[in-house]
């Protein structure tokens, strides 16, 4: 929990889920998107359309 708070100090987190309401997600200091594509469009709006994207399909399975 405190780790994700530290992450939020320096990064925006967009959550793709249908398990939580927009209000819950916003209160939890994140933004809600319904699909990965919608989330990506929202992210391009923040960091620019030429942004470099890294995809880690399973973030628990890998060590980086």
């Amino acid at each position, binding site marked *: *929990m405190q780790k994700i708070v530290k992450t939020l100090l320096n*990064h925006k987190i967009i959550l*793709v889920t249908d*398990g939580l309401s927009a209000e819950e997600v916003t209160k939890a200091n994140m933004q809600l998107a319904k699909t990965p594509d919608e989330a990506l469009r929202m992210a391009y709006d923040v960091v620019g359309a030429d942004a470099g*994207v*890294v995809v880690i*399909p399973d973030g628990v399975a890998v060590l980086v």
Partner: protein
Amino acid sequence: MFIKDIISLPRCYNSIMVTLKIPYDDHSLDLHIDEQNLRATIQLPVEQKPEKSARELMLAALRNPVGTPSLRNLAVDKQKVVIVTSDHTRAVPSKITLPILLSEIRAGNPQADITILIATGAHRATTEAEQRAMFGDEIVDHEHIVVNDAFRPEDFEYICNLPSGAHFSVNKLATECDLLIAEGFVEPHFFAGFSGGRKSILPGVCDIRTIKENHSYMQIASPYAAAGVTENNPVHRDMNFAARKVNLQFILNVTMNAQKEVTGAFAGDMILAHEQAIKHVQNVSTCERVVGDIVVTSNGGYPLDQNLYQSPKAVATAEACCRDGGVIIMCCGCRDGMGGDDFARLISMGTPQEIDDYLSKIPADQTIPQQ
């Protein structure tokens, strides 16, 4: 201007969209991304089937333990023996490991009085139905099984303070036996570095105060309290110290692939055998780090993405690959919602700075369970 516009047009028309599958709940979601934006996809290569069966791997490890005599030799003349095993939240294949460990101990001392102690840490008790699923009826019906209860002070004995200054009280069963061994499962753990080994003792069979102090803000705030990191990791250091202090004499740990097939077995000294298992996990799980402006990830779908509380695991991996000020896209089914009242309350109590300030002021022995 006009010429430049014409030249730039084909680039636009030639853009190639790539479709990537992101695990989500019990299925996956499609991510469509312009190839020109895609800097890297970080994932493990398709896994090979293990060459040997789980049982063969374990027997081979027990025949050649690292840094200790064999378990059957250790068990000679040892009357009270305690085997610490994992609880219902871990995927240790105890149905295979426990019968092997029991028969090795009884080969050394047929009269050994053996207790199986379930390392719950601060989790709820493992139910009998769960024990039957994990261990099999044979073991539940015929062996002596005790479930650690971190909230029953009379079960624990204060041992010492740990290198960080944290309090260390352990289940008396671990101190009042003649031989203490543990079985476990080694995988990356997002602040202990890796699970398994010494983790069977701390937090496994400790009281709630010890667990709170081991998981305190100060400990977890360390940059070394991270997945895959053991060097300088204060959480790991305290855990190793605690397990040595109560003389955890022998471990049998396994590694598994995504399909929960055993890929390796490691037996012997609690540090040396654990380090071997860690090397194995590093060899199969380490990917080259590539940093981007946007990182898309998931917790691997259900069950790990069943609530938001679990999401920091993948977010930590994403953060390591995301530049400061970048955006992390986390795909998380959350079929059970936020996951825990403490977590929901804390993550929603203010801005990230306000929450961090609040958490940093909580004394170690008052650490909130989901903090």
